[in-house]
């Protein structure tokens, strides 16, 4: 990487070049390494929750099966599809940034944002339903189906923690998208400088991946045991 210094007369004086970098190439590289390192940090952050999930699933198989059968896998499934599509549109937005086509770029960013919102709306409905059924852990928690209520409650505790943090990441992602759309509209991004689009893309895909794991773990495992209070 030290090499990038030696031939350090490239796009000097580009308005997007920060004073302490020699050239855009170096700046872009720094950006992408930075984002990747940040994502590793995110992996460990969610990792703690996945670990807790694994241990309690192994401890209380019946209760977890019963509880997860009670979730509405149709909504979960729809949301999975929504997120995957949004990942594709995001990837395409990056593609058009790279090829310097402004209109499709803005367009796909916009679609991505809409899909993200759809996801959150559906999630909101799901949450509302859980609250109504007194499935939110805490004083008001009620469980009549199979399995020890305490253990079922732990499942829902983990469910809300994981999906909640995931939703929080989605909201942050949406914020970034709004900002991207505005500056993309102003034509800020060119084939030689579009790091922000690229990096936001990485982040968005990561959030998608988290959900790719959450869906089967929370909604599907245990469906095959017809036991448990699923309907």
């Amino acid at each position: 990487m030290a090499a990038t210094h030696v031939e350090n007369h490239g796009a000097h004086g580009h308005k997007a070049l920060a004073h302490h970098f020699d050239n855009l190439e170096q700046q872009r590289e720094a950006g992408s390494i930075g984002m990747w390192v940040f994502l590793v940090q995110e992996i460990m952050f969610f990792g703690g929750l996945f670990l807790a999930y694994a241990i309690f699933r192994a401890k209380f198989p019946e209760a977890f099966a019963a509880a997860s059968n009670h979730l509405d896998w149709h909504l979960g499934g729809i949301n999975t599809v929504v997120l995957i599509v949004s990942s594709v549109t995001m990837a395409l937005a990056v593609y058009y940034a790279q090829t310097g086509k402004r209109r499709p770029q803005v367009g796909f960013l916009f679609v991505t944002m809409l899909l993200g919102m759809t996801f959150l709306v559906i999630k909101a409905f799901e949450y509302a339903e859980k609250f109504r059924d007194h499935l939110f852990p805490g004083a008001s928690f009620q469980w009549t189906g199979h399995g020890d209520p305490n253990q079922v409650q732990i499942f829902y505790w983990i469910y809300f923690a994981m999906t909640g943090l995931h939703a929080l990441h989605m909201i942050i992602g949406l914020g970034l998208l709004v900002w991207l759309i505005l500056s993309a509209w102003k034509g800020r991004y060119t084939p030689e400088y579009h790091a922000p689009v690229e990096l936001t893309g990485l982040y968005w895909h990561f959030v998608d991946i988290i959900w790719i794991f959450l869906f089967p773990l929370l909604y599907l495992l245990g469906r095959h045991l017809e036991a448990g209070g699923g309907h």
Partner: protein
Amino acid sequence: METTAAALPIEPLETSRVNYLNQEYGLKSWLLTKDHKRIGLLYLGSVSLFFLLGGIYAMLIRIELLTPQGDLVQSHTYNKLFTQHGIIMVFFFLIPSIPAVLGNFLIPLMIGAKDLAFPRINLLSWYIYTAGGLLTLWALVAGGVDTGWTFYTPFSTTFSNSYVILAGLGIFINGFSSILTGLNFIVTIHTMRAPGMTWFRLPLFVWAHYATSIIFILGTPVLAITILLLAFERLAHVGIFDPAYGGDPILFQHLFWFYSHPAVYIMVLPGMGIISELIANFSRKNIFGYTFVAFSSIAIAVFGFLVWGHHMFVSGQSVYAGMIFSFLSFAVAIPSAIKVFNWTATLFKGSISYATPMLYALGFIGLFTIGGMTGLFLAALGLDVHLTDTYFIVAHFHYVMVGGTLLAYLGGLHYWWPKITGRMYPEGWGRFAALVIFVGFNLTFFPQFLLGYMGMPRRYHVYSEEFQVLHVMSTAGASILGVGLLMPLVYFIWSMRYGRIAAANPWRLPGLEWRTSSPPPTENFETTPIVTWEAYEFAPPEELEVVGKLSPRDEPDHPALQP
């Protein structure tokens, strides 16, 4: 921190040269700065304040322990004292101390970069740190925390009626400042090295910080999520850590130590980096076995993640897991051994100066050896069963954290003080203080090893008489230590106004940070330096090629350098 700035007048002697300190003035120029050097100073200010606070707690603890019956404060208060002492010292002093102050200031200088890769994020990390700090301080003012710095459940989630959530959130937020600092270092070291500054020409200080950053990135998030879960559990009275809700307290311990053992290496690795610098530079020798010292840092960072279970030998963890963790704990000791031996070997046939920083370095090696070796006592399963949660533990980690890291930090501050402020500290006082601290430290903590083996449990407010003699010794030592630490506090501030003007390269060293003027200009170097020399490649001083502008007075002006 502003005061730091104010205390630095424009220097008449210096030809009206602009440096990072006198380029701009005023509060705003500091609070909105993106200059890694100024951010380093911001950290220096806040970290020092927290250290004083933690130290005052420590003194209160020691005074309380003068007598077996707890007659100074009530048990409840005492528990808050050691908890807050631990939390502040670990999370708000020792972990940020070396990386955020010296690392921030020096890494760009050492690799010949204009700044860190993400200056804004760097400033942000300081604000996050401050926010976290204030939140925790709020918790302390509001009524304090009494869970011990380890926050064991279910006590912390269900039984403690103190401000656990506030303090927890403070630590949670503070964690992200560490993460951002680590992220910044990794990216900077990868992408911003000057031409010719190959990986194996990097000063070992940089290697150490690279290793530390790995731990920041991979460990801290786990602590974050753990504390978050703890806070929610306490809030909602439901969760995964309290058996009353079907949860599991051992899981909390796993998650906590998964971060907190690596964290102890966060605390010591940068210190080791400083020691490598001091030992090499003050004996004018290239470090013995550079690659071994460099890679041992990485090894510690990696293997440090495999041993957390050694804090849980008596917790009800599976004995087989205990075996594995014990084995790996012994394994991770080896890289540290390698460092110690290489430092010693570096002195061989050197030209050793007795300047203050070197005194601290020598002190470090001795005390870290004792602290580390006593770590082996604790890694030995059968012995830890007797020693765990006694004062032996307390003694062990103060030897490594105070005798180790704190001494390294002080050594580093003295060493780079001229570069940071453009002024020399008073050498005579420096040496004297180092001596007092060394004596006071040993008197404070050595008796605690004996206490521990005799069975004095830690976190005890009231204890039985047979332990008193040693406790009194320890307290006596602590007050000497306190006075010793007071001295640098005073003469550093004094020297910022009255200290002798420092030359660009007062120690006559080859490192890049010495090849620009003191204090350096905001952009660090007038022109991007091209590195053509190896690390610690000593040549007769006059042959040292110089990058950037120097201050007019550049003759050896340091007592330690006079023949």
